[in-house]
């Protein structure tokens, strides 16, 4: 279970939110929506530990954890606006490299399966600069397919994906929730997640 109490954050001098609380149980997805600039990305970065909040605390399984503490990092996968993809490496190399970096190294069979899952198998040897935006986003999806971390923090994961890609994303998140994982997803495009397992939260506005 991931909880946050009394979170406050600002960007520059603008206060984005304060007194914000949230609770996501195992097997549950929290979908964060709201207008541009309301602080969705900042909230997710705070939860991932990239941005320090002005105030408030984060609890994982009831234990208070400092933002960005090793315990939080070891429990979560963050997928941001930038996909962390290197133009000069192939899709497969990018995926293997990212998986190792996040502490979940994958063997050849797992890489094959993940690339299959996102329909990039035929393109896996091409340097990433030859891929389209949507295909690059699919590499990020393949990383999710490999991740068994409990907490997924996804910032606009559907950007640049086609209908097929969005369906894959939805299936990946649904499978993650089935495994008792939990997810916090910021999105503009409505995602078809299992209704019983997802809640939504509107920021700002």
């Amino acid at each position, binding site marked *: 279970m991931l909880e946050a109490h009394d979170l406050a954050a600002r960007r520059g001098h603008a206060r984005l939110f304060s007194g914000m609380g949230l609770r996501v149980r195992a097997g549950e997805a929290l979908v964060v929506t709201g207008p541009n600039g309301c602080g969705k990305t900042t909230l997710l970065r705070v939860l991932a*530990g*990239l941005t320090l909040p002005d105030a408030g605390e984060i609890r994982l399984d009831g234990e208070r954890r400092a933002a960005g503490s090793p315990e939080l990092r*070891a429990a979560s996968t963050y997928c*941001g606006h*930038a996909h962390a993809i290197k133009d000069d*490496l192939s899709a497969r190399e990018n995926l293997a490299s990212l998986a190792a970096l996040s502490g979940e190294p994958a063997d050849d069979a797992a890489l094959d399966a993940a690339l299959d899952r996102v329909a990039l198998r035929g393109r896996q040897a091409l340097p990433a600069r030859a891929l389209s935006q949507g295909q690059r986003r699919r590499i990020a999806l393949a990383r999710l397919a490999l991740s068994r971390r409990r907490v997924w923090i996804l910032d606009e994961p559907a950007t640049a994906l086609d209908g097929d890609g969005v369906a894959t994303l939805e299936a990946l998140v649904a499978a993650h929730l089935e495994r008792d994982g939990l997810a916090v997803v910021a999105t503009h495009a409505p995602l078809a997640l299992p209704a019983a397992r997802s809640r939504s939260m509107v920021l700002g506005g």
Partner: protein
Amino acid sequence: MSGARPQDADGERDGALAGLAWALARDLRIALRTRSELAVIVAFYAVVVTLFPLATTPDRNTLLTLGPGVLWVSALLASLLSLPRLFAADFADGTLEQMALSPWPLPAIVSGKIAAHWLTTGLPVVLLAPLAALPYGLDGDAIGVLGASLALGTPILSLLGAIGAALTLGVRGAGGLLALLVLPLYVPVLIFGAGAVDAFRAGLGVDANLSLLGAGLIAAAVGAPFAAAAAVRIALD
């Protein structure tokens, strides 16, 4: 579900080594794919070194005196030229975020990146030194001392430069600011590095200069990755 266990010293060390090896291997692989960028830096070094004899005088004694200083200043400029590449690309494409979130310690990953930076920009300069010293008429032993001082000194340039590169992430006009920030830090390295060759030619021992460079290298290798990693976290916040 395994992860970093910070209370476990062995696990911490293994994680640090794994992080260092990962970053080193990845940056070297990317550098090999973008060889032209590296060639530009080596070519820059070669051109600057060649310009001085053309611009000053063909007089043998003057060149002999100028040589070590010119070679060192050129090495320093070549290092400075390559520094923005160290973190900027990873910052722009989000890799730096993932590095900060990795269970491996960030200073270890940064160390690996710095090591790759030296291997791809510092080491070629060291290896090129005997050739670059030719126009200045340095003899074999003097070239040996110069090579030794460069081998000890150029890693310090990469280490100190990494702090500057991390501090100027996301700043407008980062290149110029980086030079202003880092060049003063390079001064002691320059003095002891070029000084080693001068001391040798004057018949004095070179031990003192090289020992100081070695001590500087150890201090920088221990401290700089932590400072650079802290600066990276600030840039990401």
